[in-house]
């Protein structure tokens, strides 16, 4: 028995969500009285791999085959399942990122494992192995009890936090055989805005709704986001109208997020919108209508015209940073 965590790299680097996954997997290993290994696929420098030791990964399997340079879930799932077997790992932890969502189910099927997706807490082990996860687009939580011998857990970003737990690291090369039939999907192009904070991982999100009247008014939203190191988001009608890209749409039929701080500007707070954002730790609502439903779930509210309020906040933030 042991725990295996998959550490997703992006251009050779690990994001905070990976350190969270390692911290979480380490806590499970401690809880189970067993060891933790990590598996990294793709080209990552040793110095970067050593970072994982800070969070408790003492053994790292490094897979560097050329044909695995790009993420192909079918092949990566085979490699991870193979590693789990070699390490006798019965619990596999994966970040619930866009790639993780396509990967974890395949690993689970290969290992005949029960899968908890969108986990938000450590497992409890009294009366069965149970993990709390989001359900109904953030309107509720479900406790999933796994009865299978092997288990796969996909951890939501920003749910567990990063916990330091320094150990010394041993890096081992791992070179499983890769079937060509696992590599029929071919990555042609990757387009990534490197200067922007990505929405699902963001600790702070500044979001705009129809109250902002038009795409030309997003300058102040972006300025506020930049000053806060935040990602930008929007309500559904805003992306439907092409004021903003679909990838920014949050809510029940968009991305569900749980940042530390969510600032909603000119958004009414419809049930479908709240579903995806209400697990944010702190919510600020700026709306000119005191009756807007969003105020009912807000921690801080400003009743006022966004075009007057937001510039004031930007000025105050600049002063605060200076």
């Amino acid at each position, binding site marked *: 028995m042991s725990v295996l965590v998959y550490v997703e790299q992006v251009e050779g680097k690990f*994001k905070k969500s990976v350190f969270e996954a390692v911290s979480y997997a380490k806590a499970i290993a401690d809880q189970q009285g067993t060891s933790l290994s990590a598996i990294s696929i793709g080209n990552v420098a040793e110095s970067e791999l050593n970072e994982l030791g800070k969070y408790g990964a003492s053994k790292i399997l490094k897979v560097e085959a050329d044909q695995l340079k790009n*993420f192909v*879930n*079918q092949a990566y799932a085979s490699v991870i399942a193979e590693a789990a077997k070699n390490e006798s790992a019965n619990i596999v932890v994966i970040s619930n990122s*866009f790639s993780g969502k*396509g990967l*974890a*189910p*395949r690993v*689970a*099927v290969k290992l*005949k494992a029960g*899968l908890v*997706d969108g986990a938000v807490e450590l497992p409890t082990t009294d009366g069965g192995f149970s993990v*709390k996860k989001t*359900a*109904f687009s*953030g*309107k*509720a939580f*479900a406790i*999933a*009890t796994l*009865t*299978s011998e092997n288990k796969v857990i996909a951890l939501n970003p920003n749910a567990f936090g990063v916990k330091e737990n320094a150990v010394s690291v041993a890096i081992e090369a791992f070179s499983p055989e890769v079937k060509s039939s696992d590599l*029929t*999907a*071919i*990555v*042609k192009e990757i*387009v*990534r805005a490197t200067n922007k*904070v*990505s929405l699902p991982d963001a600790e*702070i999100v500044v979001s705009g709704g129809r109250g902002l009247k038009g795409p030309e008014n997003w300058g102040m939203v972006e300025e506020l986001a930049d000053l806060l190191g935040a990602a930008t988001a929007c309500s559904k009608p805003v992306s439907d109208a092409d004021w903003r890209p679909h*990838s920014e*749409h949050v809510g*029940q*039929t*968009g991305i569900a997020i749980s940042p530390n*701080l969510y600032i909603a500007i000119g958004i009414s707070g419809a*049930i*479908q919108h709240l*579903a995806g954002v209400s697990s944010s*730790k*702190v*919510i600020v609502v700026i709306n000119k209508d005191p009756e807007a439903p969003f105020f009912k*779930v807000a*921690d*801080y*509210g*400003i009743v*006022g015209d966004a075009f007057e*309020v937001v510039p*004031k*906040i930007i*000025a*105050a*933030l600049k*002063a605060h940073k200076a």
Partner: protein
Amino acid sequence: MKILVCISNVPDTTTKITFTGDNTEFNTAGVQYIVNPYDEIALSRAIELAEGGKGTVTVINVGEAATEPTIRKALAIGADDAVRVNGAPRDAYFVATQIAEYAKSNDFDIILCGRESIDYNGSQVAAMVGELLDIPSISIIKKLDYDGSTATIEREIEGGKEVVSVSGKFVASCAEGTAEAKIPNMRGIMSARTKPLQVIEAVAVEEVGKISKFETPAPRGSVKLIPAESAEELIGLLHSEAKVI
């Protein structure tokens, strides 16, 4: 070209979520069910690809008889025929196994799902079907072109997109961008009544786990209002009181 679209039957997005039986069961009283919004997107793209006699679109749902109105809605949107696998959709593994079993004997070129069902939000079924059939699965796509043998797909990644090319059979789970959801017209609704809806029995699947309990989020404290004239105070509060900046 044969396309299979997987449809889940979910509570309407306006549903207030409550539970019964000491929080062990979802309270279905008064709940309206709809075609999962992402599945409408998948179905709409499938219909576009098949248009002009280029192919056929079959929808499949794993569910009990009560889901048939949802299946008819999918037929009204424009699917050619439908299959219901008779069985309660216990979990994603159960559902994926049923879909894969059906697909094995029916030779589909493309299998489309929604990115996730808005009830249990697994994002699991598509990739599991791919694994069970040992074919590629691309999760959370926002664009799908298909020339009859090769698909060019854009999938969502953090802060951008990835373009993937797939030859041969594949599964994909569709998000916004893939298509505009089509709304059934009168002719569609009329013809849906007579389109074929086949019912087959579910195969047995080993249980790997279950939902043992639900929780509703803790209610928030009341809002602290800051007058608009002194909006700048927000920054101090976020810094020293909420400690988030």
